[in-house]
């Protein structure tokens, strides 16, 4: 309330402004921001955690936001590395794409659901709203609740092109905006079905065999399991040295081992 | 308090130094407005129009560039209702001097004691200077307000019905204080209480409906008024 406190406030404000100028340079030289796909985020965070242990001075911020946002962030230099769980679109050709791993898309149901196997056609039928009852899959006559990802999601993009071909997903679908929240819904509803990244599959839900192939590291690696998509790092045409070094680490044997341990399949 | 169309008209008064000038008149006669012009508290009223001159030591205080804050430091004001600020007694008294740059603790202490003595309050509060001023009784609060003006070492003290809400004993104390003060200060007292004016004023002005009706020594106004209206008023026929 006192006038000198007011003066103190002004001084603080000026300091803050000065800090902002100096700190901007700081951000560019010492910190790395990785943003994009929520499917890639947990793996990027794990990689970053270990990489920061090796290079204690480095700061890596990992953000979600989604594949498209990551690509955009990379282009707008908000992030040095963008991550994507879908292929780049033709109009995104100005960026460098690096495949870091391959991921399966697991079709999941509640553990109590007796259905174990599903064909691509049945899956398409369910998501286009034509198959509406579990009796069509050999269970009781109860409605099927299918959970979709939101428009723009890389996982959805991949699912649409691998499963739906030209068909559209019905607008009756429940929509969630991350793998985790899809998994949560399925884990709590015996009549629900959905799809998530194989990498974050856990005991709460049951993965179905698709066309009689169970998703696991081997079937994904040798392409027997057909619902797979790449995990991509996106870099501007002239990446910062820090970004390049981090990408090198991810592609090294050590980095790839970390990813395999977490449930992804190496890029080779 | 300030009607839209109300105005004071053609007033000319010479206020003597070191005396108590009493101003009386029924309510709405313009007493308070006149008082507020004298230290330019009227500046707070939007769209007020004041014409004329108020000379203090020969300088017109109504001139736009006149330093109002210095004026108000020289011309202190005590309001009808005692209004201590919500702080301690000590802080109430030192508030003004501090705001005008007096920082020396010894000078401040001195002024607190002197002004409280002059307002005949010192003996009652000397042991609790740092307690809240709001805990004092109404009469004490009003004397504190007088002391607050004194602590500014002002030259003129304007009092706007200072005893209107007080009991006779408190009123007597304040009147005693004013009598003691008049040798060092020029005092202008507005009051509804004609008896009070008669008791302590050296000169009296009578206002009615914004006009100055009569101005002179109390003996003249109270015993031998030249105007019928004054006579009616002092004899209690209206007011």
């Amino acid at each position, binding site marked *: 309330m006192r006038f000198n406190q007011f003066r103190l406030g002004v001084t603080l404000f000026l300091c803050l402004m000065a800090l902002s100028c100096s700190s901007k340079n700081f951000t560019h030289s010492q910190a790395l921001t990785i943003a994009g796909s929520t499917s890639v985020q947990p793996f990027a965070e*794990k990689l970053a955690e270990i990489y920061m242990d090796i290079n204690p001075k480095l700061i890596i911020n990992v953000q979600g936001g989604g594949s498209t946002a990551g690509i955009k962030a990379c282009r707008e230099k908000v992030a040095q590395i963008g991550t994507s769980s879908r292929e780049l679109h033709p109009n995104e050709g100005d960026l460098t794409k690096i495949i870091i791993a391959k991921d399966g898309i697991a079709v999941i149901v509640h553990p109590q659901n007796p259905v174990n196997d599903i064909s691509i056609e049945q899956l398409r039928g369910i998501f286009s709203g034509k198959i509406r009852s579990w009796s069509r899959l050999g269970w009781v006559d109860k409605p099927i609740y299918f959970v979709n990802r939101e428009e723009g999601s890389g996982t959805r993009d991949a699912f649409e092109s691998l499963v739906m071909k030209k068909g559209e997903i019905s607008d009756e679908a429940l929509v969630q905006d991350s793998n985790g929240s899809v998994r949560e819904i399925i884990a709590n509803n015996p009549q629900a079905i959905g799809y998530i990244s194989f990498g974050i599959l856990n005991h709460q839900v049951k993965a179905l065999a698709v066309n009689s192939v169970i998703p696991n590291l081997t079937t994904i690696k040798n392409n027997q399991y057909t619902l797979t998509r790449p995990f991509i790092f996106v870099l501007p045409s002239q990446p910062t040295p820090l970004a390049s070094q981090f990408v090198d680490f991810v592609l090294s044997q050590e980095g790839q081992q970390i990813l395999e341990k977490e449930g992804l399949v190496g890029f080779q | 308090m300030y009607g839209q169309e109300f105005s004071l008209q053609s007033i000319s008064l010479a206020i003597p130094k070191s005396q108590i000038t009493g101003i009386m008149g029924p309510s709405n006669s313009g007493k308070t407005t006149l008082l507020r012009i004298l230290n330019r508290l009227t500046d707070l009223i939007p769209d007020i129009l004041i014409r004329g001159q108020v000379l203090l030591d020969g300088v017109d205080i109504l001139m736009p560039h006149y330093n109002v804050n210095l004026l108000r*430091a020289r011309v202190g004001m005590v*309001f009808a209702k005692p209004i201590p600020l919500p702080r301690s007694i000590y802080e109430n008294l030192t508030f003004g001097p501090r705001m005008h740059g007096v920082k020396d603790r010894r000078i401040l202490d001195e002024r607190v004691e002197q002004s409280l003595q002059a307002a005949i309050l010192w003996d009652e509060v000397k042991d609790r200077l740092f307690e809240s001023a709001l805990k004092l009784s109404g009469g004490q609060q009003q004397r504190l307000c007088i002391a607050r003006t004194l602590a500014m070492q002002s030259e003129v003290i304007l009092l706007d019905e200072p005893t209107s809400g007080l009991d006779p004993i408190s009123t007597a104390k304040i009147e005693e204080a004013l009598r003691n003060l008049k040798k060092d200060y020029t005092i202008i007292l507005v009051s509804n209480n004609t008896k009070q004016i008669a008791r302590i004023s050296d000169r009296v002005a009578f206002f009615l409906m914004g006009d100055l009706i009569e101005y002179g020594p109390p003996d003249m106004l109270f015993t031998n008024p030249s105007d019928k209206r004054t006579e009616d008023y002092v004899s209690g026929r209206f007011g």
Partner: protein
Amino acid sequence: MMRLNPILSQKIIKTLLWILTGSTIGILFFIIIYIFIKGLPQLSWTFLSTNPVDMGRSGGILATIVSTVYLIGIALFFATPLGLGTAIYLTEYTREGLITKIIRFGTESLAGIPSIILGLFGFAIFVIAFGWGWSLLSGGLTLSAMLLPTIIRTSEESILSVPQEYREVAFSLGVGKWKTITRVVLPAALPGIVTGIVLSIARSVGETAVIIFTAGSSLRFPSSIFESGRTLAVHFYILAREGISMPMAYGTAAILVLLILIINISAYMTMRFLMKRYS
């Protein structure tokens, strides 16, 4: 049709109203107690003082507490002077008129803007246009736009409630306008102003939509305001929604509700303390 005796019908209605009120208050207590029962057992000093590990599956919530504090600090740093300045202008420097009407309308409307729209706005302005990225600074600035109306309104109300006589006393002692405001009016209005600020802190603690868009959700311990950070509420949202760890989610929720409780209670205590000081 039978007409009910008015006294009897009053009794029935009164009982019904008390039942409804009781159940409403019951819901409130249920929510708080439910969160505490599930969450308080998770709390420990380690939970508060260590950083989250493995996306928050283990470890504590220190980084999110620090981010929350940063964000509130930044938001108040900008919103308080702006809000207080506006309130002072409205009460002391101008008369009711077209300008005050416009300003009041702006304040009211800003108060009604959904946080998601503020989030969109902050994202495009601070994150993209100013190039600050997802950062505590971007988040704090956007948040300050959200707090501004609250602070303006509460400050204005409490300044208005300061008796006009105090100002006259100060003026009559030859104190200038600005000094009168800072030395007499604001101290007297302080209880209300502080309460407004404290309650706006409670609001920032619970906010999520604005913050995800502008401050991001990085779990790292923030070392400067130019880094992204994840606040408690955002952390809770992600933990619960992604099903990362329910015990951690309940623990975080308990901290959140506890904080809101403490903030609210301390707002009332400060107010009462400040009001009692000299009266």
